[in-house]
């Protein structure tokens, strides 16, 4: 018994040692902070955590102060702290990391161009491991850091969990890619991407209007909020269209390597179009397996499919003729996209996907709203939240994921999805 207690104490000591380590690295990541805003940020953090600091947080604060003093010249009008939340480890890491990188590029560009209203922008992106509980932990970590605006979460379920907390604390929240309806029910929450029902309906209408097919098979991820959300709306909208849905094959997160059954069913049912409201990782496998079994059919997808050509070593000929409805295509030739893709490639060695674009647009949307509302560093979170929420409905943003994006008070964006087809290994507008 005593031995075990002893070892636990030792384990505790180890944790404590790690805590100190954490304090100093935390300071590094916030080194652009301006010393003068330190008090303001602390006030902003709200009454319940104004003085909030455990012993170890104290240590980190002290370290931060030191770092801030040396870097005090960064922003003339203080700093603006944006907190991001998304999965950076675990199976969904690819989406969170992309959104984080996209946001970071936007932040760097804005800071290079003089910041928002003269404030230097700081981005602190925390991992939620695709777990709602962890996303709330991440949010609380950001609150301790003195966050002023939340750019997150990247995924729907986490967004909903955090939305309940931001509404309580009156912190403005803009999710780059949380597409479920419930993500933006609170007056303080907005999104950059389309909502799931919106995409499902748009896809069904597009297919119907252009007479792309008469018999449609759907393969969707029933364990994913995004995918099942689109699927449901697609099916209900299909009733108003000229085509019929012949099979609907579901798969789950634990079962996403083998799609032979779903494809075989689609083949047997004589489908002439397969609708894939899923992400590109699974779609890449589906395309490969369809080609292996000699099933030559038209594939149609949503924005989740964007990125399929960026998969390392992917045989682009498999994706030939695939159509997708997406607001962003990495191969578009407009200046903004070209510049973004080039920077992303240089910095991170990858081609950005839809999530990166959403993350980038989210930061610029916050910038546009903050400038409209005249946000200054000494405003409290509550003031910022009210001002930004009001400003959101008045702004118009030209982003990577659409030109002239506008918002209404419900939090939904209005923008046009572009239909693109993959021709000769590149996205081509239809």
């Amino acid at each position, binding site marked *: 018994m005593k031995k075990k207690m002893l070892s636990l104490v030792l384990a505790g000591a180890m944790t404590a040692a790690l805590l100190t380590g954490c304090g100093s690295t935390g300071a590094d990541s916030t080194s652009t902070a301006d010393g003068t805003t330190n008090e303001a940020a602390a006030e902003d953090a709200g009454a319940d955590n104004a003085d909030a600091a455990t012993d170890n947080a104290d240590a980190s604060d002290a370290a931060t102060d030191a770092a801030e003093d040396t870097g005090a010249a960064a922003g003339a009008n203080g700093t603006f702290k944006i907190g991001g939340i998304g999965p950076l480890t675990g199976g969904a890491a690819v989406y969170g990391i992309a959104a984080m990188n996209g946001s970071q590029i936007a932040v760097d560009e804005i800071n290079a161009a003089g910041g928002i209203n003269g404030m230097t922008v700081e981005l602190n992106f925390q991992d939620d491991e695709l777990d709602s509980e962890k996303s709330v932990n991440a949010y609380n970590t950001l609150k301790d850091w003195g966050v002023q605006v939340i750019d997150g979460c990247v995924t729907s379920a986490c967004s909903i969990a955090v939305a309940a907390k931001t509404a309580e604390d009156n912190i403005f929240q803009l999710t780059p890619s949380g597409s479920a309806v419930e993500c933006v029910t609170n007056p303080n929450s907005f999104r950059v991407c389309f909502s799931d029902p919106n995409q499902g309906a748009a896809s069904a209408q597009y297919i119907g209007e252009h007479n792309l097919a008469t018999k449609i098979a759907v393969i969707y991820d029933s364990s994913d909020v995004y995918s099942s959300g689109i699927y449901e709306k697609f099916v209900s909208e299909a009733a108003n269209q000229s085509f019929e849905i012949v099979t609907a094959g579901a798969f789950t997160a634990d079962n996403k390597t083998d799609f032979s059954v779903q494809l075989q*069913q689609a083949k047997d049912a004589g489908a002439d179009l397969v609708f894939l409201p899923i992400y590109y990782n699974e779609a890449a496998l589906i395309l490969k397996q369809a080609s292996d079994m000699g099933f030559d059919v038209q594939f149609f997808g949503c924005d989740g499919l964007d990125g399929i050509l960026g998969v*390392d*070593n992917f045989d682009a000929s498999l994706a030939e003729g695939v159509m997708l409805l997406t607001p962003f295509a990495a191969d578009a030739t407009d200046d903004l996209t070209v510049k973004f893709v080039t920077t992303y490639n240089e910095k991170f060695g990858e081609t950005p996907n839809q999530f990166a674009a959403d993350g980038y647009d989210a930061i610029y949307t916050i910038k546009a709203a903050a400038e409209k509302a005249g946000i200054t560093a000494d405003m409290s979170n509550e003031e910022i939240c009210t001002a930004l929420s009001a400003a959101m409905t008045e702004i118009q943003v030209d982003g990577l994921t659409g030109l002239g994006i506008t918002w209404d008070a419900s939090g939904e964006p209005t923008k046009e999805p572009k239909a693109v087809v993959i021709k000769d290994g590149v996205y081509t507008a239809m």
Partner: protein
Amino acid sequence: MSFVAHLINGISLGSVYALIALGYTMVYGIAKMLNFAHGDVIMIGGYVVFVTVSGMGLNPLAAIIISMAACTILGVVIERVAYRPLRGASPLAVLITAIGVSYLLQNVALLVFGSDTKAFTNVVPFPNLELFDGQLVIKSVTIVTVIVNVIIMVGLTLFVKKTKIGRAMTAVSEDKGAAQLMGINVNGTIAITFAIGSSLAAIAGVLLCSAYPALTPYTGSMPGIKAFVAAVFGGIGSIPGAFIGGILLGVIENLSKAYISSQLSDAIVFSILIIVLLVKPTGLLGKKVQEKV
């Protein structure tokens, strides 16, 4: 016809499970530990081949050999650093450590290779077999996987039964203490077991990724669990049991997806596993252990 197609696709999936299960059962049979990190060694094996073939342009066969060597070293190092210090401790402690190793490998891969999916190049250079005017397609990977399975199964059985090291392994699995007294190097024997198990993991990784060409740091974990279930299904520790368990699991999974519900296929697979274990508590080909009083 579609039933036959579902059946063949099931065998195709099952053959991959079987290959992974062989590695699981090998380590469990000798070292009596559930090596939860096996699936992640498979993932590392896949990445090694990916890097050597797609990055350095090596011949796939050479890449597989390099990958086997890398995984063998990795397996032995893991055994030496993480598992050997715990020999003699509660099996639960070893299980948890294996899970720690699994997290470690996943996160190392995440840092080194990134989170984005890599499309794996099929290393099997043969065309698919098409029957009845393309109505029925048997993937060349499937044929190769089944053949590799049989070769490994026969090879392992012969190795364990006929060679001196193999017999030492059997002795260690029966009774570590007695084996030591008979002059067998227990630690060495277990290290060799891990070396073999890990090189099998490399082969499994290559064939898994050739059949389902999407490689991420988490590629190995779910097939790893399924293969573990397959090994238990067939009777853990039994080499032919792992093969039969793997194939059956794949077939049941695909048929239940096709004819019952694609959402509930896991629930069905696990229910069948439970029923089998209730009827035969040590799996299909498992040995019944007499309990000593």
